[in-house]
């Protein structure tokens, strides 16, 4: 598994992401700059980390979604290559057209930073093989704009084609209600592209990889990726 992490001005989770990738794959990911035009030869996985690219100016992820490197990321995705976007990375994927919909201001207008349970919707993708379908995992969230919205036709298509990756739930695995931190449609925390080779999610699995800092439920995602290529 050869991974590359894209760093934009204002990214701040690239170090956490690199640590999680190194732990799972045994090798350091390449760190790419937003102004680069090419991915390193043989890249299997491109990761867009969390943060506040371009200070969230205009709309979260809007300017990063049009950065020079994104043409190479789009071409990689079109070839079936794996792409993971976490938090601001998910916003960038939506703004760049790699995933449908948009992440709007949290319904309660508050930045939310807390531990969060998620339900794993399917375990047959490159990102989730090390989890069980329906499993509840505990990771963390830290965002002000994570309220996933799309038109009804898009939501129906995501549901019909089983492209929802994770949903917000409580510790008992009950989806929605108070467990939904931001008002996301259908309690969506993450979605796949049509080919299921692109995943965007608001929560931070890369921060839950060490028992010393709160848990290891995030490891499954990186171990799945490590065994995928």
């Amino acid at each position, binding site marked *: 598994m050869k991974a590359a992490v894209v760093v934009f001005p204002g990214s701040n989770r690239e170090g956490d992401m690199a640590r999680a990738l190194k732990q799972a794959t045994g090798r350091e990911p390449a760190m790419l700059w937003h102004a680069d035009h090419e991915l390193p030869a043989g890249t299997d996985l491109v990761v867009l980390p969390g943060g506040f690219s371009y200070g969230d100016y*205009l*709309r979260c992820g*809007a*300017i990063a979604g*049009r950065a020079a490197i994104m043409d190479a990321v789009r071409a990689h995705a079109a070839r079936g290559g794996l792409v993971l976007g976490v938090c601001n990375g998910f916003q960038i994927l939506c*703004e760049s057209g790699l995933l*449908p*919909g*948009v992440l*709007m*201001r*949290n*319904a*309660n*207008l508050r930045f939310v930073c807390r531990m969060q349970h998620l339900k794993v919707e399917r375990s047959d993708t490159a990102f989730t093989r090390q989890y069980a379908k329906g499993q509840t995992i505990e990771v963390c969230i830290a965002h002000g704009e994570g*309220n996933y*919205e*799309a*038109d009804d036709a898009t939501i129906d298509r995501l549901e019909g084609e089983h492209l929802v990756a994770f949903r917000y739930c409580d510790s008992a695995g009950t989806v929605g209600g108070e467990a939904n931190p931001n*008002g996301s449609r259908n309690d969506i925390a993450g979605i796949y592209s049509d080919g299921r080779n692109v995943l965007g999610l608001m929560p931070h699995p890369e921060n839950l990889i060490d028992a010393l800092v709160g848990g290891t439920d995030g490891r499954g995602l990186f171990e799945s990726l490590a065994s995928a290529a």
Partner: protein
Amino acid sequence: MKARVVVTLKSGVLDPQGKAIEGALKSLGVEGVANVRQGKVFDVELAGADASAAKAQLQAACEKLLANTVIENYQIDL
């Protein structure tokens, strides 16, 4: 040439910021406020003087960057 681009949320898209502003206006005693929707204004200066070319350039700017057409409409005033 100067132009103004106004980007607004499409109707039906929930606008929590607009709702908060609406609530604040009501709590300040501003009477008769039924609904508030928040948008963005861009004042753009264009190098050329041809209005139809400017309109096409601004349309491209809106489609490529200024508006997210999933949730937003835009209006160009020259």
